[in-house]
């Protein structure tokens, strides 16, 4: 009689983890290849298009890089911000809502501060986004500290409240609604004035937006913050054991409030960057970063370098699937989503297999 059972692996090497992930990606791409073949498409062509994000044979290759960064930067920032709160065992899943709040407040500044010098407007937009979104995070943390509410539910429901509020603003023509184009009968979010559009450094024709540079700098700062600062240390202790944190004389509620403010403010900033880079807002502008960010944060085990890698790969996948679907009339965006879903699912499965192994009981005669 042999039985299979699960055993937690010990002494996992990073190499094995990577091999497992690669195997998972290979398997899901194999399944995808069968689907592609059934649609009469050469999977190799499709995948090479996907992995090169449509860069090959591209008249405007720099545009593809810019497009990729537009997916990557918000995802990176949201994932890091979520990791901050997750590290504290505070389940902030309100990334979507906080992102939109940040974007909308930045937009309000952009629409209202026409005529001011660009840097001033941009800084004001970022501040407005961070403060507004941060205050929402603070409110959630306050409810948690004061009334012990379930932050998962609060932040989850908040996402929908914000989303529908943004939709309302976007679909309601009214004299008070300065978010909309005035010259359009139909409600449409207006374009930001030029001084509110994120500038960049021109490298040839490629425009490296300052928001990209700042997000990379922020990654380093957050890494250092979590790893080396006293506040980062406090977050780790609170996440590990609240009792121990109290014992060590930490003001636990203060730490939760502060960290949630930072976490939400960062997400708000991502929203402001995103709005400023695309010069407008919309209810779908989050590109699901608030949700995907949760996956990224967990896949990377809340480590900042891990988030950098995971966010990069997942953005590559998202953008690559979109780019690859272009050239094939049979493939629509839904198929691209399907591919993306399969690959993510396989990676999460392999994550399980990295943590556990299935073993067969060894029979040894004595």
């Amino acid at each position, binding site marked *: 009689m042999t039985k299979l*059972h699960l055993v937690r692996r*010990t002494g996992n090497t990073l190499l094995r983890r990577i091999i497992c992930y690669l195997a998972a990606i290979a398997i899901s791409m194999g399944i995808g290849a069968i689907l592609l073949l059934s649609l009469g498409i050469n999977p190799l062509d499709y995948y090479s298009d996907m992995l090169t994000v449509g860069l090959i044979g591209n008249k405007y290759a720099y545009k593809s890089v810019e497009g990729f960064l537009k997916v990557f930067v918000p995802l990176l920032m949201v994932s890091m911000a979520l990791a901050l709160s997750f590290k504290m065992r505070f389940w902030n899943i309100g990334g979507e809502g906080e992102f939109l709040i940040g974007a909308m407040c930045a937009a309000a500044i952009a629409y209202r501060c026409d005529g001011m010098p660009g840097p001033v407007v941009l800084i004001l937009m970022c501040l407005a986004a961070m403060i507004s979104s941060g205050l929402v995070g603070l409110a959630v943390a306050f409810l948690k500290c004061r009334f012990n509410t379930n932050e998962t539910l609060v932040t989850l429901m908040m996402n929908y409240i914000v989303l529908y509020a943004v939709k309302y603003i976007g679909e309601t023509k009214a004299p008070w609604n300065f978010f909309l184009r005035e010259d359009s009968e139909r409600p449409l979010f207006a374009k930001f004035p030029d001084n509110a559009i994120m500038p960049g450094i021109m490298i040839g024709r490629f425009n490296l937006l300052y928001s990209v540079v700042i997000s990379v700098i922020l990654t380093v700062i957050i890494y250092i913050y979590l790893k080396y600062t006293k506040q980062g240390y406090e977050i780790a202790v609170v996440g590990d054991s609240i*009792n121990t944190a109290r014992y060590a004389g930490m003001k636990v509620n203060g730490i939760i409030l502060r960290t949630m403010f930072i976490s939400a403010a960062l997400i708000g900033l991502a929203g402001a960057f995103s709005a400023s880079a695309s010069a407008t807002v919309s209810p779908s502008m989050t590109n699901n970063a608030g949700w995907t960010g949760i996956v990224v944060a967990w896949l990377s085990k809340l480590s900042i370098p891990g988030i950098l890698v995971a966010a990069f790969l997942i953005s590559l996948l998202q953008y690559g699937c979109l780019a690859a679907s272009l050239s094939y009339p049979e493939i629509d965006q839904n198929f691209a989503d399907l591919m993306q879903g399969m690959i993510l699912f396989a990676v999460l499965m392999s994550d399980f297999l990295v943590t556990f192994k299935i073993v067969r009981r060894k029979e040894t005669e004595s």
Partner: protein
Amino acid sequence: MADEPYAIELRGICKTFGSIKANRNINLTLKKGEILALLGENGSGKTTLMNMLSGIYTPDAGSVFINGAKVTISSPEDSAKLGIGMVHQHFKLVENFSCADNIWIGARDKGFLLKKDRYKIIEDMASEFGFEIDPRKLVSMMSVSEKQTLEILKVLYYGASVIILDEPTAVLTVQETRKLFDVLRRMKESGHSVIIITHKLNEVMEISDRVAVLRKGEYIDTVVTSETTEKKLTELMVGRKIELNINRPAPNKTKPLLEIRNLTVLNDEGSVAVDDLRFYIRGGEILGVAGIAGSGQKELCEAIAGLRHVERGKIIHKGRNIAGLPPKTIFEAGIAFSFIPEDRLGMGLAPNMSIVDNVILKKYKYGTSPFVDRKSGRVEAEDIVKRYEVVTTSVDAPVRQMSGGNVQKVLLGREINASPNVLITAYPVRGLDINSSYLVYDTLNAQKAKGVGVLFVGEDLDVMMELCDKIMVMCHGRLMGVVRAVNTNKEELGLMMTGALDLVNAKEDKPAGIAVDSALTLEEWEREIEAEDKEVDKND
């Protein structure tokens, strides 16, 4: 033996976790209707071995025979089907369920509906083995010993003929332990076999028929209890002779460092846990705190450390009332606090963080730099590891990966490294093996010699009587009296712990435990000390 097969026989069991060999070639036999004690130091592989019997782990090699037949145990269900039940150190109970429902949820063939008479069934079973338990009581309302009783009842209900108890007495009082042993004997009479894991040699001698000894993952020997002595067992266990007597240097008394006046503290549920308590600790002495588990020891410690709200009363440290001050201020005033809770990791340590990070826990905030100073933390961590012989792969390893004893050494080491003038330590040897325990005693004595006032909350009366200078006894949060360790005996302490003997007002001229005003001058103190010493001489 040839006529009757063993209830359990293990042959050549091996188990490896990563690079650690937890069990190497273990052979063990358990007769039907016997109580076998499994003895070994911390980390000697006792719990691992028993977890393999209960199906939580599967052995890498070796075979298990039950009643002479070879079996494979690959899950807890397999184990239960074979009639093996284990009572774990950490209870596995649903807090919001009643006693009966906790038993019911795990029962096989329980059918679809809850049976109305399930309370009756449990009650009958309890009385058969002599348990005292209310089947309707919620687990969250139960005391530790009740929870343990429930765990035992559970495995009996599931039809276990072999019951494994992992350090069952660690959380029990003397009286409760006695009760447990009665139950075990009754189980033995009814044909059950029992394996009991314990560190306490006196209990081994009292309850077991045979003793199996493990050392560092290896099987050493099995001896018949009646043919051995505590000394011999200790030798088997640690592999060398050790001094059994705890050293107690004469105290070098100074002014009371900490004086507790009319202290009242509430517990988490809001009822009075510490009731109008008053006592004092001098520098250079060890004051033991004895009492049945849950008599307010935890709340007292927390109140002193500033972790719990003080309802009424004063805590005077060096002439300053520290009641109500934040924990950080109290720590910085030199009051160190190490509390080993029942789960050993609940308070004072961050289990997923490294030794270095745990060592700096209380002083990470020092200095104006926004960064945590891990450099000095690392030096300190390495020093603690070396000085207290902490077994670990590295100071960067999470403390969760270390065995309980090593975790405690880190915790205590950290507190002592803060060079406190008052050291509050609760259950510092809880679950420690003998070697480690002595290391702790020596450490505490060293602190005492340095003039530190030590408050030692303990559970083993024998140890307290040998280690402490004075013993304060609490019962339901009330002071029952402070006695000199040399002048008392276990019976007197036991009576005080149960509230049968109250010494607070025994002497009319000088009520025990009332501190003299700590604002007295030095000369006056010296006179006080002389008077006390005279009293001791008189009693001797």
